[in-house]
């Protein structure tokens, strides 16, 4: 027992003191924020200057409205959106669209004079300009657009869906306004008609109605990502540690002094304590920020409404982290004991890591429909459960029996994996010179 504690202590103390640990603790939340904010931002960025758009207005009456709609309407939208923004609480897609709009550098619109030229001729000239790069896109508005509702969009990069969608919706606006104007609807009524509606969402759960600002997605995403990140990070740490001991033959001294089971468990537990320490620091930082940071920022005029996270969620986070960690770290330890070099370890561990990535990817459909049968089975399968079940709990807490069942299946799997690994670990760790083959490993399991 004393030796077991010595192993745990070494793993823990040696790792917590490293610069690596400090850096990961500080950078972790930053990375997470980056992951949540940057991808939608990047997809929304329109590189380069404003989109140069030429308009061939065969109807002769839509150009002005369309131009105003493209260039001017941004301001109207933005005003409304400004009143919403800075509350970190709109849902992902809305935010993504808004980021796209905000970062868009707008349009440079030019009319194309028809001057009696045929449409073919005009298009030929415009095509030439697009090819030369003088122009990005052009739109042909046919005479009968008000009745048919059809127009043509030409451009080199029709894959730029943001531009295409914007042009489409702005042209629709222009057409709608024109139609209404023909019905003699006054401008001020038009403006009133166009005012946007914003939704206030309310979450219904077992505890009744809860004010939900829509920040749910971020919380869910953060929890799922946190589990994924820590499991990968600390699982790989176990892999590296096992290979180090094998490669440097420290294993010789270890196994001649201590039984293999406490050695293996000591390593797994020691590293898990490091991870829990890190999670605790993050949790504490979050709580402190909620209590003090928000108030301080509010005093300076910046309001942040942080989503309300019930304390129970943190308990589940801890539980499912432990589940995920012990499942994957045990497999990583097994892999580490079978290989001879870090490179080989990386190769053999790849399928394991992919399994973990698959679980993370499954989190997205699960967030969208947390009560589907896919979500149910994904959260019962022990290799996915740590991420998918946690995501379900945070999104729309499933019945308790499902949570208990997934934990039972999960920790049952952990026991099985540890049993299996402990039968292989010692032989693997003391075998040098070559990678263990699968048949060999199976023989060890039977013989041990």
């Amino acid at each position, binding site marked *: 027992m*004393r*030796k077991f504690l*010595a*192993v745990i202590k*070494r793993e823990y103390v*040696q790792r917590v003191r490293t610069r690596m640990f400090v850096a990961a603790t500080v950078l972790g939340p930053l990375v997470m924020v980056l992951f949540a904010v940057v991808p939608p931002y990047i997809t929304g960025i329109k590189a380069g200057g404003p989109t140069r758009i030429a308009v061939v207005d065969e109807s002769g009456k839509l150009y002005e409205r369309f131009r105003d709609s493209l260039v001017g309407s941004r301001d109207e939208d933005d005003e409304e959106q400004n009143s919403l923004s800075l509350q970190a609480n709109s849902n992902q897609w809305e935010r993504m669209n808004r980021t796209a709009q905000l970062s868009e550098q707008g349009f440079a619109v030019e009319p194309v004079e028809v001057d009696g030229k045929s449409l073919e001729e005009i298009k030929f000239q415009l095509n030439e300009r697009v090819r030369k790069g003088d122009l990005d896109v052009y739109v042909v508005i046919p005479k009968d657009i008000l009745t048919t509702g059809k127009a043509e969009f030409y451009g080199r990069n029709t894959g730029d869906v943001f531009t295409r969608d914007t042009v489409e919706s702005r042209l629709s606006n222009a057409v709608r306004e024109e139609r209404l104007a023909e019905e003699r609807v006054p401008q001020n009524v038009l403006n009133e008609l166009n005012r946007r509606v914003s939704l206030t969402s309310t979450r219904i759960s077992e505890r009744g109605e809860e004010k939900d600002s829509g920040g749910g997605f971020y919380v869910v995403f953060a929890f799922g990502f946190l589990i994924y990140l820590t499991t990968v990070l600390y699982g790989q740490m176990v892999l590296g540690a096992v290979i*180090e*001991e094998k490669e*440097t*033959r*420290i*294993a*010789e*001294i*270890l*196994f*001649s*002094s*201590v*039984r293999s089971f406490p050695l293996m468990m000591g390593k797994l537990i020691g590293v898990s304590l490091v991870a829990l320490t890190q999670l605790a620091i993050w949790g504490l930082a979050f709580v402190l920020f909620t209590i003090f940071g928000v108030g301080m920022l509010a005093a300076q005029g910046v309001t942040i409404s942080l989503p309300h996270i019930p304390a129970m969620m943190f308990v589940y986070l801890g539980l499912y982290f432990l589940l995920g960690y012990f499942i994957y770290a045990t497999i990583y330890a097994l892999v580490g004991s079978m290989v001879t070099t870090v490179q080989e370890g990386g190769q053999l561990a790849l399928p394991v890591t992919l399994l973990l990535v698959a679980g993370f990817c499954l989190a997205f459909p699960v967030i969208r429909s947390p009560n589907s049968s896919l979500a149910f089975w994904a959260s019962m399968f022990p290799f996915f459960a740590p991420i998918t079940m946690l995501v379900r709990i945070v999104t729309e807490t499933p019945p308790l029996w499902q949570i208990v069942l997934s934990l039972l299946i999960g920790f049952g799997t952990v026991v099985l994996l540890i049993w299996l690994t402990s039968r292989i670990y010692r032989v693997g760790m*003391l075998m040098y010179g070559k990678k263990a083959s699968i048949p060999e490993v199976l023989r060890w399991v039977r013989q041990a």
Partner: protein
Amino acid sequence: MEETKPTLVLEHVTKSFGEFTAVSDLSLEVRPGRVFGLIGPNGAGKTTTIRMIVNLTVADSGRIELFGQPLSLALQDRIGYLPEERGLYKKMKVGEQLRFFAELKGLRGKEAVARIDRWLAKLQLADWKEKRTRELSKGMQQKVQFITAVIHDPDLVILDEPFSGLDPVNVDLMKETILDQKARGKTIILSTHQMEIAEMLCDDVCMIDRSRKVLDGRLRQIRRSFARNAVALQFEGGDSLLNDPALVANVHQVGEDIEVLLAPAANPQTLLKRLVDSGATVTRFELVEPSLHDIFIEKVREVA
């Protein structure tokens, strides 16, 4: 010879890896308070034998008894083991590393700290206590590894090639330390392929070649029993004399020193007389016991 109970007994121990037999029907006895040399060329089976004693591999057949009991993990705390392949945590500080290994052997607290300091001072490593292991030279790392083998004051110390990679100063330091352990009543098993070292340190030896024991016993007796007409010589002139097969069976020359094994029919007196008669100036003429090296070569030839 049977005055005390042996520290370690191996009886008909065999170990194979697939087709390859690493140790074949090996029996030996290591008596307390003595330095026991396990000698033989690389790949003879020395390390496999040691790995069985320290509980890293299990013998296919045969019996191993340690301190009068069958092998068990509990007994391992009374053994100190310096593996042939040195292994230390590269990133750990020397002091912490030693502390960890001491704890693994059941030692702890102030006692461990005091012993670590004592050993570091003894092996001239005191200034390196707070340094990370990877900053140390190979020789220094080896001395640290040696400390891990003796920190818990074991009754039996097993050293696998303890001198490889050490400079002459450290070789002397290591020899001194080993003899010091012996003086304190500890039993030492020394595995090496360097015969000269075994010759200097060992009381008993067991020679292994290609998985089999070729010879064992007290070093002094072995050498005496092999002492035939071997002469160490230094002389000038009359070299051709040594080419006479009726007189000389084998010549082994290192610099000025010549070691001559006389032909069975000849004797030292005849050699000396013939040398003087031939006009050579003899500066050294000494009857010697054969070296372990010679004995080993002869034994191996015999077996083959």
